[in-house]
């Protein structure tokens, strides 16, 4: 559809556009991307984002390792991923161009800050000659804009150094993009006012930069069209844009309200989990208590201590921290207290790639402790779903008196999507465990259905008792070295976690209930798998998608689902961890698809793998 809008250029309507902002890590690309995202979200598009930034806070300016990117896909239809390949690339310097241009779709729009293409910057990016001049970019529509110069001109007269002026050029680029995609500047102007209201010169500079970019789009003749992506048809309700970390934090806050107990978050700073602490530490007026511990061990210790006192003891970390928490998690298994451990997975082993995503801590969560040490494991599938799964983690922990490991990852944690704000009244009641009313009290007397032990907290008169890491005598809870008792208690702890399967939703199948191929996923691969399956189904392939949110125990029908397809494909951002468990648990000869590159799967990759399997049959 083409109509003429404004005085010059036609406006084209698109279903979906994917933009990547790339620049130096000091260029404010994350902020630029976030502002565009907010604007698209408030407009009503479905969105999905992928920030991609280096671990170094400020790598050498202009260098290849210092490139920071932010990809947003926004759409008028339901989307599940931030897009395989950008349609538009905004590159603020040669290094950003070099590291990102290979992903741009052929014919895609390339907007570059031509001022940054100086000989030193070109050399740092490894270009012998300027790619703007040598014809190497002719597969794309290149828009070379002297952003730094134009921006500096717009800010003339402000009491700022040239360096300060240059820091605002990202907002000039943002202004150009707002014009190109017909977006209102209002949400960002409001944000500038809120953020810099106290510093009028900074606020004015950012305002001018944004408006100058927009005006440039309007007056320049280099663009031949503008694009509009209409609002998506989302389910009715109030929406906001959330990252996975935000949704995780909010889910835990909601769980505490639903449980009518205080939330204590004890943690140690670690990428990519730290934002959960930043967020929760700002919720003091909501009664949320946060504790920045001296190390990962102290963090989970304090969380368990808080749970022992009757609060929702929460800790959060990433892989290396998870390794340190293992012993205390074992204690939590032994004392059978509710506890949620958030692991925002990142590429490992060891320090690995701290800012990059991976799904390689599943076996650690399942088996990474001494002794027979079962814990429940849940995993959200998308940023917005982090809220639901955080509530679910607490529901399981509180009802079944068990530690729960919640496996998020860097992609979920930093990616965003629209989240329909729930009504607390529609969420489950989490007021379970209490001191019990029986005349007799034994610390390890179990609930007949769940096998949960009573949660009797200090301060309860007449029920003083001792717990700890030594084996407990069944029912009485005193220390016991009896061989048969240890065997019985080991079975009871396993059975208690296994029975959670009776209390969780069955595994749902998207697509035919049986057939050629089932793609089984868990965690953040959801979007790519679902999109690939939609494409394959649209072409008539016998393909279904099932996504596990509960990794221990599995939903009761999991085995039946897996056995209903000729082939089961398990794509994972690890070397086959869920596949290993599936094979041993269900004797299903699942096929793996495993890429560990620190980044999410692309839809096309999963689609190709599925087509290959379908073709083989």
């Amino acid at each position: 559809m083409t109509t003429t809008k404004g005085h010059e250029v036609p406006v084209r309507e698109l279903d979906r556009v994917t933009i990547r902002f790339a620049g130096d890590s000091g260029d404010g690309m994350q902020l630029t991307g976030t502002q565009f995202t907010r604007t698209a979200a408030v407009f009503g598009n479905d969105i999905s984002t992928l920030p991609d930034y280096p671990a170094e806070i400020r790598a050498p300016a202009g260098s290849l390792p210092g490139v920071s990117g932010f990809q947003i896909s926004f759409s008028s239809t339901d989307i599940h991923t931030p897009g395989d390949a950008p349609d538009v690339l905004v590159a603020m310097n040669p290094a950003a161009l070099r590291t990102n241009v290979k992903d741009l779709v052929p014919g895609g729009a390339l907007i570059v800050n031509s001022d940054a293409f100086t000989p030193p910057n070109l050399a740092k990016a490894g270009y012998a000659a300027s790619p703007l001049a040598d014809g190497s970019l002719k597969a794309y529509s290149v828009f070379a804009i002297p952003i730094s110069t134009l921006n500096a001109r717009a800010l003339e007269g402000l009491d700022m150094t040239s360096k300060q002026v240059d820091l605002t050029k990202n907002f000039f680029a943002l202004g150009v993009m707002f014009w190109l995609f017909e977006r209102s500047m209002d949400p960002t102007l409001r944000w500038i006012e809120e953020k810099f209201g106290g510093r009028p010169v900074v606020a004015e500079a950012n305002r001018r930069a944004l408006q100058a970019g927009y005006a440039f789009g309007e007056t320049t003749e280099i663009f031949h069209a503008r694009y509009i992506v209409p609002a998506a048809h989302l389910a009715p309700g109030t929406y906001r844009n959330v990252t996975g970390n935000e949704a995780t934090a909010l889910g835990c806050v909601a769980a505490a309200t639903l449980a009518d107990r205080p939330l204590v978050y004890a943690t140690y700073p670690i990428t990519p989990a730290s934002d959960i602490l930043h967020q929760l530490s700002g919720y003091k007026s909501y009664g949320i208590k946060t504790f920045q511990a001296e190390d990962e061990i102290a963090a989970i210790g304090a969380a368990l201590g808080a749970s022992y006192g009757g609060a929702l003891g929460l800790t959060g970390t990433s892989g290396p921290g998870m390794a340190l928490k293992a012993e205390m998690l074992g204690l939590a298994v032994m004392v059978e207290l509710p506890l949620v451990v958030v692991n925002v997975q990142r590429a490992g082993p060891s320090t690995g790639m701290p800012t990059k995503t991976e799904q390689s801590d599943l076996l650690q969560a399942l088996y990474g402790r001494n002794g027979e040490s079962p814990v429940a494991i849940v995993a959200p599938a998308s940023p917005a779903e982090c809220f639901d799964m955080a509530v679910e983690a607490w529901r399981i922990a509180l009802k079944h008196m068990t530690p729960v490991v919640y496996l998020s990852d860097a992609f979920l944690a930093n990616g965003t999507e629209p989240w329909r704000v729930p009504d607390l009244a529609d969420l489950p009641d989490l007021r379970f465990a209490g001191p019990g009313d029986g005349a007799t009290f034994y610390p390890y007397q179990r609930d007949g259905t769940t096998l949960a032990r009573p949660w009797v907290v200090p301060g309860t008169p007449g029920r003083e008792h001792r717990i700890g890491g030594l084996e407990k005598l069944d029912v009485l809870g005193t220390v016991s070295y009896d061989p048969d008792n240890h065997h019985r208690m080991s079975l009871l702890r396993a059975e208690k976690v296994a029975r959670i399967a009776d209390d969780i939703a069955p595994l749902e199948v998207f697509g035919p209930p049986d057939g050629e191929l089932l793609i089984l996923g868990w965690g953040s691969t959801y979007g790519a798998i679902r999109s690939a399956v939609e494409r394959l189904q649209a072409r008539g392939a016998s393909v279904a998608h099932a996504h596990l949110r509960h990794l221990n125990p599995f939903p009761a029908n999991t085995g039946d689902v897996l056995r209903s397809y000729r082939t089961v494909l398990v794509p994972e951002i690890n070397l086959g961890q869920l596949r290993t468990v599936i094979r041993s648990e269900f004797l299903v000869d699942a096929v793996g698809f495993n890429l560990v590159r620190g980044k999410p799967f692309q839809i096309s990759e999963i689609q190709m793998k599925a087509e290959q399997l379908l073709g083989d049959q």
Partner: protein
Amino acid sequence: MTDTTMAAEPIKLTRKDFASDQEPRWCPGCGDYSILAQTQKVMPDFGVPKENIVFVSGIGCSGRFPYYMNTYGFHSIHGRAPTLATGLKIARPDLMVWVVTGDGDALSIGGNHILHAMRKNVDIRVVMFNNRIYGLTKGQASPTSEFGQKTKSTPVGSVDYPVHPLMIALAAEASFVARTVDTQVDHIQKVMERAGFHRGSAFVEVLQNCLIFNDGAHRAFTDREVREDRMLVLEHGKPMLFGKNRDMGLRLNGLRPEVVRIGEDGITEADILVHDEASEDPTIHNMLARIYWPEFPVPIGVIRNVPRPTLDELIEGQIRDAVGRRGKGDIQQLLGGGDTWTVE
């Protein structure tokens, strides 16, 4: 400890109320029996209902302590008791929380936690049994074992220099630092009582004898015949005098401590240092934590006791302030906060 831990009505508990039904399983003659008995004896003095008292321990012989106290108790894992106690205290400022630990538990595997629980002034009383050996693992060198000491793990002598536990407590800014001895029944009671009434991070070193693996580790200055001459019993506001005839004392010679005798070389009581446990300046406290037999008498008693807001008070205070400024937060509004849009 906040006021809410106090019983509304004065309660009259006795030592027996604090003894659990579990038979202690330490070696016969272990110093831990004495510490347990004296702790049970002073507990009623605090006027805190026993359900509001929690003993948390780590691993080692000291770790068994909570099983023998008829209060709430948590026998945790090696070195980590302060972390659980900290979380518990954050969640439940109303509870009186004790940590029972040993020299290996507190100063080796749990060293980091002791450091931070103290500096954060967590309202917990850490009682560290110092027998200068690993007992439960059957006799390896601990961080307080003497240099050159022969143990199972150091058959030709330890090559490690020992730490000074109270200096660590002071360096970590513990707001209450004390030392006592397992064999001095009255003194343990006094120190435990002071620690119990203190609000904030209290660190109490109890010199404790391990009959099996390090017998007599403290005997050189704790034996009945010599202790008055070889230990300095500190009392706030009193001169640092010691000796059977209380004629020996500690004074400063320039920047160095020095043992002097009253009446010799014109020394009078006026020359002797006067103990000020409440001094903000820790210089003298550091000196008292450092001096040791045989160069000096071993100081026992409360070395430092200064008031400071506790971690739980500060956390609660920030919440109160935030609620005062913005009102009590509404969770439903929080969920729906930020930039939102509505789909009809």
